[in-house]
């Protein structure tokens, strides 16, 4: 029992945070400061508690291994920007911490049932968060939340049906089932479809752009980083528990197709948030390609590190980009024209983030892409890697296009002056994310012994 308590210490901290936030609602007039403090302190405390955890396999439900720990690190850290930008609403805080807790549970899942619990636990609060959080566009948020809910419910249903088929053939919920027959493979396929649904891989991506566009930008940042990291781990765990040769064949191609599709559609967007949503889709494709390479290499730890590095870099880049939207209120690409002349600091930070997202050295985004390409080629996936490279080129069309809009165009004559003191928290966070995204690219160089 103590083993379980230690292994799940971060999750316990987050659960305490959820109850604390709900408890705030019982107070007559809760100060927003309390909820804000809770939103920031709970993930920080979970990060601190992570240091205490030693890897442990506690069958049947809990398996806290290296990836479980590493993923928790990325997920909790990726949730911090949303926590810092919190409005101080107690319900939103509880929802946010609940979703984070669900991701933490998913990280510790040792069998398929626990995986499902984690999936639902992280998804349900997220639907409400999309609907609730944010100041404007309420009807659009509600519509997006409903769409998100239906997509999520469908993913959950697919998973459960797949699980039933899988259990029906093998009689197992955990690893070690051996080679599968037709029923079992159908089950695995359905469960994988659920994972790809949550990641937003083509052709199960249709809900994603609407949700990311309508949710408040901070929430979209959270969904595209922490939630996406959890969804990728969901897929990784699934491959680990029910390894099937199909994964190594299908995932790389799906990943490459997603990368290309996302990039091609992002190119056509006029709205900045929708553009970032499709760009997120494109990055998800590279992650799926990475998982495919990992599966093909037989669970090689280097391939796993590549995915992890990608997620860490992406947590900074995507959070930073969505926070730029939150900090500046820029809606369309036209609003961005001449931005450098109007607000030099945020423009420079956003430009650095865009170069990182585009994978230009020496940034973290470049290292991340390099590692995924590297592992793909190691696994012999030459053509999916070449397609993903093509997607990178296409994506540069809009990332550089945004830099061009900001720096090479002149502002419209009638644009309102910018209040440099407004939304200082968001501005500082954008800068921090930009610095982090660049430094992450230099880190491997700094660690080289001269």
């Amino acid at each position, binding site marked *: 029992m103590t083993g379980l308590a230690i292994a799940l210490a971060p999750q316990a901290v987050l659960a305490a945070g959820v109850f604390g936030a709900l408890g705030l609602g019982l107070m007559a007039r809760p100060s927003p400061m309390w909820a804000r403090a809770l939103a920031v302190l709970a993930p920080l405390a979970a990060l601190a508690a992570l240091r205490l955890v030693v890897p442990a396999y506690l069958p049947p439900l809990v398996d806290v291994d290296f990836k479980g720990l590493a993923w928790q690190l990325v997920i909790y850290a990726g949730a911090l920007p949303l926590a810092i930008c919190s409005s101080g609403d107690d319900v939103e805080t509880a929802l946010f911490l609940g979703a984070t807790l669900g991701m933490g549970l998913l990280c510790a899942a040792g069998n398929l049932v626990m995986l499902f619990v984690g999936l639902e636990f992280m998804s349900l609060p997220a639907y409400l968060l999309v609907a609730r959080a944010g100041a404007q566009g309420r009807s659009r948020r509600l519509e997006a939340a409903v769409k998100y809910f239906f997509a999520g419910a469908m993913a959950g249903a697919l998973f459960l049906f797949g699980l039933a088929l899988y259990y029906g053939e093998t009689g197992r919920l955990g690893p070690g089932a051996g080679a599968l027959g037709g029923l079992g493979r159908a089950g695995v396929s359905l469960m994988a479809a659920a994972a790809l649904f949550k990641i937003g891989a083509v052709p199960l991506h249709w809900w994603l752009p609407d949700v990311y566009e309508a949710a408040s930008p901070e929430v979209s940042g959270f969904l595209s980083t922490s939630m996406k990291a959890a969804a990728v781990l969901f897929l990784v765990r699934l491959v680990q528990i029910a390894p099937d040769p199909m994964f190594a064949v299908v995932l790389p191609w799906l990943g490459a197709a997603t990368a290309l599709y996302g990039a091609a559609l992002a190119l056509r967007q006029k709205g900045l948030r929708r553009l970032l949503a499709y760009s997120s889709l494109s990055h998800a494709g590279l992650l799926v390609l990475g998982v495919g390479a990992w599966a093909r290499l037989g669970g090689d730890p280097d391939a796993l590190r590549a995915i992890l590095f990608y997620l860490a870099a992406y947590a900074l880049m995507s959070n930073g980009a969505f926070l730029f939207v939150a900090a500046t209120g820029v809606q369309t690409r036209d609003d961005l024209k001449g931005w450098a002349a109007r607000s030099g600091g945020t423009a420079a930070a956003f430009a650095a983030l865009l*170069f990182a997202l585009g994978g*230009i*050295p*020496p940034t973290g985004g*470049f290292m991340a892409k*390099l*590692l995924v*390409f*590297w592992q793909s*080629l*190691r696994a012999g996936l*030459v053509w999916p*890697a*070449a397609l993903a*490279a093509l997607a*990178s*080129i296409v994506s*540069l*069309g809009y990332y*550089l*296009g945004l*830099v*061009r809009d900001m*720096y*090479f*165009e002149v502002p419209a004559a009638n644009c309102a002056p910018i209040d440099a003191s407004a939304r200082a928290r968001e501005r500082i966070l954008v800068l921090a994310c930009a610095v982090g995204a660049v430094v992450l690219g230099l880190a*491997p*160089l700094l*660690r*080289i*012994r*001269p």
Partner: protein
Amino acid sequence: MSLLTSLWAVPALGAAACALSGRAARWTALVFSLAALGLSMAALRPILVSHGAGLLVEGGASGLFGISYSLSADGLSLALVALTAFLNLICAFASWELEVPAGYWAAFQALAAAVNGVFLARDLFLFYVFWEASLIPMFFIIGLWGSDNRRKAALKFFLFTFTGSIFMLLALLAVVIAHQRATGVWTWSLPELTGTDLGAGAPWILLALMAGFGVKVPMVPLHTWLPDAHTEAPAAGSVMLAGVMLKMGVYGIIRVALPLVPGAAAAWMPILALLAGVNAVYGALCAMAQTDLKRLIAYSSIAHLGFCLIGVFSGTAQGLAGAALLMINHGVTTGALFLLVGFLYERAHRRGLSDFGALATRAPRMAFFFGFSILASIGLPGLNGFVGEFMCLSGAAQSPILFGGLPFYALIGAIGVTLAAAYALPAFQSVFWAAEGPNSVSPKVFDLGGRESAILWTLCALMLWIGLAPQPWLATLAPSLQGLVR
């Protein structure tokens, strides 16, 4: 900080210092450019003394992912580093009176840092990082301070190069992985990767590498970004683009592509040389059709780099040495031409051939320098262009691997040389000697001032020096290329 590191780190620091020094940025840029030139001379000195022998190496132990911070420099690298530092200083003087913000000066310093890193890297990861990093400052130089069509040109420049280089990255990764499979060691070090057996994938790897380097050179049909980028960039930007950044492509072919896949390269050499010949002729033909003076010079670069590649792909000592010298020559000569067009544009805000006439009487100094540089560019004996082009073509004529030793490729090159006179001299004539047309803006043009003349005296003196006494230059460059002689 050791010497080779300082060659890229000093300009990098210079970029930061320029960005921070506000209105005094031009002085900061001047100080750092002078320092960079001094350092490159200090690095070049031992190699000059020993007639090209010697190799400076720094760093080496490999760390995370097999990446190592390791630099090396021989005569070729250091000559190109010195060229970069020299042209950067020239650019600083040429832009001295422009009303530009600190970012302009910082961008040029950052560009020099990245380009020098490319020429010095011995680790292919570093090579690639510097290679790509050099795009960012040039993107801003074109996009922020270029002429009317700059936005499109900047984007096109970046996208073309990036497209080529991402396939180059995949090729480099494939080599690294093949080396690891054979030896069990992860490394990106170029000397260690040289000689890796790539099996049946070798031609594909060569193709991908040539995609990366060919865009940069540029090789027809990957050249379409060049006329736009060179024409729209500010004068100093065009000088750095043509003078230094095109050389990155040739340097990459010499340093990376040919050594990594020698077998496939040998098999494909006749095709590659043919493409180079197409470059020389097609570039010249396009230049003949231009009505914009700057665009004409941009196309002439394509032709010149074609000669350079004919020399490289000849696989002879003479051809390779000529190619190396031609890289330096082209930097100096085309640099001078772009600066002159820039000075012209500053005065008249026009660049069309038909916008001018009879300039020789209004601006005799400008006419002299322009004529001098044009003659050097088309290969007048006694000036620098002749030596490099002659050596490239005679190398191709002697080459045992091209067309069985028959001078077929030299013939293509010779056509290119003839065409060079056919596009350059009429352009010179129509701007400086022909009668003024009704729309002429020649009256706006006044002659070069002291600063501008001093810059061009320096460049023209260098053209004459290399033309009359090429031996010390060749002695510095040629030993670096011995390994590629077949």
